[in-house]
C-alpha cells in the first residue's frame, strides 16, 4: 500500500506491525531530517503514531510536555503527538496547530485513533473490507487491497457535478469514505466512532465589537505575522507562491517584513491574457526584491499533464486550474524546495469571493424585488471575466433573480452556482440518471449544515457553505495538497491557522465585506506593507484555460478523442455518447464560452480519466506522466522497532 504513496514521501518508507495493526509511512523529510523517521512512539513504546503534515507549534508543545515530565527522543514535530495523547487522551488534537492526517495506535487500550486537521488540508481516506479497517492518505493505496471495490458512486458523482466535490464523509468511490475535516475517528473494541472536534463557528446574530477598525486590523496583522512565523518552521528552505493577487502578496510581504527567511518565490503566468496576472507578480517581485521563478503555462502543457492531474486528484474535477499548480510544484521541486507558503484560505476567512458580494446584492434586491436599480448593482460583479454573467443586465437580473424568495435559506448564496454546475447533468446516461431520482441538492447539503446556522449573519452562512464545499472539497484537495504532493511538495496555508479563522469569524461582517469591498480588514491590516495597486486591487480568482486546452487547430488531442469516443463512453456507462458528442463539437468549434459548457466538458473528461486510470487500468502507461506504483526501492523500506 505504501508504495502507492511514493510521491508523498520519496525519502523512504518505514512501518510498524503487530498482531492487530499495521502502519506504514512514506517520508518527505522536512523537520529533524535525521531523527524524524516514523512510526514514532512514546517512552514505553505503548503509543505509536504515523502522520502526514506538520505540527507548527511543536516547539511550544514540547516545552510544556517536558515540563510535565515527558521525555523526547527526537527533535521532530511528530513526537509531540504521542506525548500529547498520553497527557490529554483524545483531547490531544485540541492542542495542535497544524495541518495533519494522523493515525495513532494505543497498544494498551487496543485503540486506533485517526484525526484530520480542522479545515481538511491533509487527506485521510478509509474503508472497511473483510472486517478490517484500512486507511491511507490517498485512495489509490486502498485499491491495493483487492477486496476493496473499484466503482464510482453515482450520487457522489452528481454531488461533484453540483457542489464541485463529494460531500464528506462520501468520496466518489463506492464504499470508500473520507474522515471529514475537524473530525476524529476511534476504532476500539470492534466499533468505529466518529466525532467532530472543531468547526467553523460564528456569533449568533450580528457580530459586534467595541474595538476600532484600526485596533481590529492590528490584531489581524499580529495574528498573521505569528501564523507565518510558525509556518516557516522547517529544517529545509521554505519558498512561497506569488499569484499577483492580494492573498499571496500578504504572505510574501509578511515574510519580508517580519522574518529573516530568504525570499524565494514562484508564480504561474499564462499566454492567454484573460488568465494572466504576471504584471502584478512582477510589480511585487520588484517591490519586495524576491528571488523569483515564473513558469509560463501553455494550453498544450495543460492538455499533456491533465491525465496525471486526475490520477493525483482521484476525483472528477470541473476546471483545469489544478494542472498548472501541479506543474508549478514540479518547478519548485526542481529548484530544490520542498515547502511553499500560499495565500489559499484568505477568501474564505475574510470574504473575498464574488459569491459573497453576489449574495449580498441578491439579498438587498430580494427586499424590493421590483427594483431595477437594486438589481443593477449586479453589474459591478465579475469585471475580470471576458464573458461576464452580468454583462447583459436584463439576463443577469433574470438569472440571479432565481430563488430570491428563499433568501432566508442557509444555502441561498450558492443556488446560482449550483444550478449552473448542474446543467452538466444533462450529459449523464440513463444508468446514472436512474440512480439520481429524488436527489435534491438543497436538501442534501442541508444535512451537513449545523443547526445554529440560521442564527448567524447572512455572510457567516455563506462563508460556512464555501468552507465546507469548495474550500475543503476542491481548493485544498484537488487544487491544493494533491497537486503539490504530486511533486513531493508540501503546501502551507497561513490564513488557515485556526486562530486566524476564529478571530475573523468573530468580526462584524462589515469589516470583511464593507459595501462591496472584499477583505476590508485584511487590506487595512496591510496598509504600508504592500504597493497600493496590489492592496486595493479587486479580486481576480485564479483560473486556467478549460476546454480550449484540449483542441489543437480544431482537433481533439489524441487521448481526448479516445476517451470521449462513443465506444469509450458507452463502455464506461456514465454519460450519453450522443449528447456528449454535441458538446465536444461545440468545444471543438471554439463556441463553448460559458462556465456551464466548460465545466461539463472538463468534468466529463476527468470522470473518464478517473475511470480509466484508477478503476480499469491503474497507472495506465499510455498517459504522459502517470507514474507506475510500487516504486519504493527495497533498501528504503524499514521496519520500526
Amino acid at each position, binding site marked *: 500500500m505504501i508504495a502507492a504513496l511514493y510521491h508523498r514521501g520519496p525519502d523512504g518508507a518505514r512501518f510498524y506491525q503487530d498482531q492487530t495493526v499495521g502502519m506504514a509511512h512514506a517520508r518527505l523529510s522536512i523537520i529533524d531530517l535525521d531523527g524524524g523517521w516514523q512510526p514514532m512512539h512514546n517512552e514505553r513504546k505503548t503509543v505509536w503514531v504515523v502522520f502526514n503534515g506538520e505540527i507548527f507549534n511543536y516547539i511550544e508543545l514540547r516545552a510544556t510536555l517536558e515540563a510535565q515530565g515527558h521525555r523526547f527522543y527526537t527533535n521532530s514535530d511528530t513526537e509531540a503527538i504521542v506525548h500529547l495523547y498520553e497527557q490529554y487522551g483524545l483531547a490531544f488534537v485540541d492542542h495542535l496547530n497544524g495541518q495533519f492526517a494522523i493515525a495513532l495506535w494505543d497498544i494498551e487500550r487496543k485503540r486506533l485513533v485517526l484525526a484530520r486537521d480542522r479545515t481538511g488540508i491533509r487527506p485521510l481516506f478509509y474503508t472497511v473490507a473483510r472486517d478490517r479497517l484500512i486507511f491511507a492518505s490517498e485512495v489509490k493505496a486502498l485499491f491495493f487491497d483487492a477486496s476493496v471495490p473499484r466503482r464510482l458512486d453515482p450520487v457522489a458523482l452528481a454531488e461533484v457535478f453540483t457542489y464541485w466535490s463529494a460531500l464528506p464523509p462520501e468520496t466518489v468511490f463506492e464504499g470508500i469514505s473520507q474522515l471529514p475535516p475537524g473530525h476524529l475517528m476511534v476504532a476500539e473494541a470492534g466499533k468505529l466512532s466518529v466525532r467532530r472536534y472543531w468547526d467553523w463557528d460564528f456569533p449568533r446574530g450580528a457580530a459586534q465589537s467595541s474595538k476600532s477598525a484600526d485596533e481590529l486590523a492590528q490584531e489581524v496583522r499580529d495574528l498573521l505575522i505569528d501564523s507565518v512565523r510558525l509556518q516557516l518552521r522547517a529544517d529545509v528552505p521554505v519558498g512561497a507562491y506569488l499569484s499577483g493577487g492580494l492573498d499571496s502578496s500578504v504572505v510574501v510581504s509578511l515574510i519580508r517584513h517580519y522574518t529573516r527567511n530568504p525570499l524565494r518565490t514562484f508564480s504561474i503566468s499564462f499566454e492567454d491574457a484573460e488568465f494572466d496576472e504576471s504584471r502584478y507578480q512582477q510589480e511585487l517581485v520588484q517591490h519586495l526584491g524576491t528571488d523569483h521563478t515564473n513558469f509560463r503555462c501553455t494550453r498544450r502543457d495543460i492538455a499533456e499533464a491533465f491525465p496525471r492531474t486526475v490520477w493525483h486528484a482521484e476525483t472528477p474535477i470541473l476546471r483545469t486550474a489544478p494542472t498548472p499548480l501541479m506543474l508549478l510544484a514540479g518547478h519548485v521541486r526542481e529548484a530544490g524546495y520542498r515547502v511553499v507558503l500560499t495565500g489559499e484560505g484568505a477568501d474564505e476567512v475574510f470574504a473575498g469571493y464574488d459569491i459573497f458580494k453576489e449574495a449580498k446584492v441578491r439579498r438587498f434586491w430580494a427586499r424590493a424585488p421590483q427594483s431595477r436599480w437594486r438589481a443593477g448593482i449586479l453589474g459591478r460583479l465579475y469585471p475580470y471575466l471576458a464573458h461576464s454573467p452580468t454583462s447583459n443586465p436584463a439576463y443577469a437580473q433574470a438569472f440571479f433573480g432565481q430563488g430570491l424568495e428563499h433568501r432566508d435559506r442557509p444555502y441561498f448564496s450558492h443556488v446560482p452556482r449550483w444550478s449552473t454546475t448542474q446543467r452538466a447533468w*444533462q450529459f449523464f446516461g440513463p444508468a446514472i440518471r436512474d440512480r439520481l431520482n429524488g436527489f435534491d441538492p438543497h436538501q442534501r447539503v442541508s444535512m451537513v449544515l449545523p443547526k445554529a446556522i440560521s442564527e448567524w449573519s447572512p455572510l457567516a452562512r455563506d462563508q460556512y457553505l464555501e468552507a465546507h464545499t469548495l474550500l475543503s472539497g476542491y481548493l485544498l484537495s484537488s487544487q491544493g495538497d494533491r497537486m503539490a504532493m504530486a511533486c513531493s511538495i508540501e503546501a502551507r496555508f497561513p490564513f488557515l491557522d485556526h486562530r486566524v479563522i476564529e478571530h475573523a469569524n468573530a468580526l462584524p461582517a462589515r469589516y470583511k465585506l464593507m459595501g462591496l469591498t472584499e477583505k476590508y480588514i485584511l487590506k487595512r491590516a496591510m496598509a504600508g506593507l504592500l504597493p497600493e495597486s496590489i492592496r486595493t486591487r479587486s479580486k481576480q480568482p485564479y483560473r486556467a484555460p478549460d476546454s480550449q486546452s484540449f483542441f489543437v487547430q480544431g482537433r481533439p488531442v489524441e487521448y481526448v478523442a479516445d476517451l470521449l469516443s462513443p465506444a469509450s463512453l458507452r463502455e464506461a456507462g456514465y454519460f450519453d455518447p450522443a*449528447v456528449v458528442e*454535441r458538446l465536444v463539437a461545440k468545444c471543438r468549434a471554439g*463556441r463553448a464560452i*460559458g462556465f456551464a459548457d466548460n465545466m461539463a466538458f472538463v468534468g466529463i473528461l476527468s470522470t473518464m480519466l478517473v475511470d480509466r486510470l484508477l478503476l480499469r487500468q491503474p497507472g495506465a502507461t499510455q498517459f504522459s506522466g502517470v507514474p507506475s506504483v510500487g516504486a519504493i526501492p527495497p533498501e528504503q523500506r524499514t521496519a520500526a522497532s
Partner: protein
Amino acid sequence: MAAEQKIRDYILQNFLFSQDQSLLNSTDSLLAKGIIDSTGVMEMITFLQEEFGITVEDSEMVPENLDSVNRISAFVARKQAAAGA
C-alpha cells in the same frame, strides 16, 4: 427551413445537446427551464446575427425578445421586416 425551426434546432443542438423535439415547447421560458443564462444569450445573439443577417441592439437583449422559441421567432420576423421596409 422556417426560421422557427432553425431557432428550435439551434437551441436543441447548442444548449440541450439533443435532437429530441419533445424537450422544447415553443412557449417554454429558456431562463426558467435553465436552458440559457446570460452567457448563452451572447451565443444566441451571435447565431441570430449570422443566421438571419439581423443586428441586435443592446437594448433589445431582453427576455421579452429572447426567452422562448416563439418570442425569438417573432423578434427575428420584426427585425427582418424592419430591415426590408
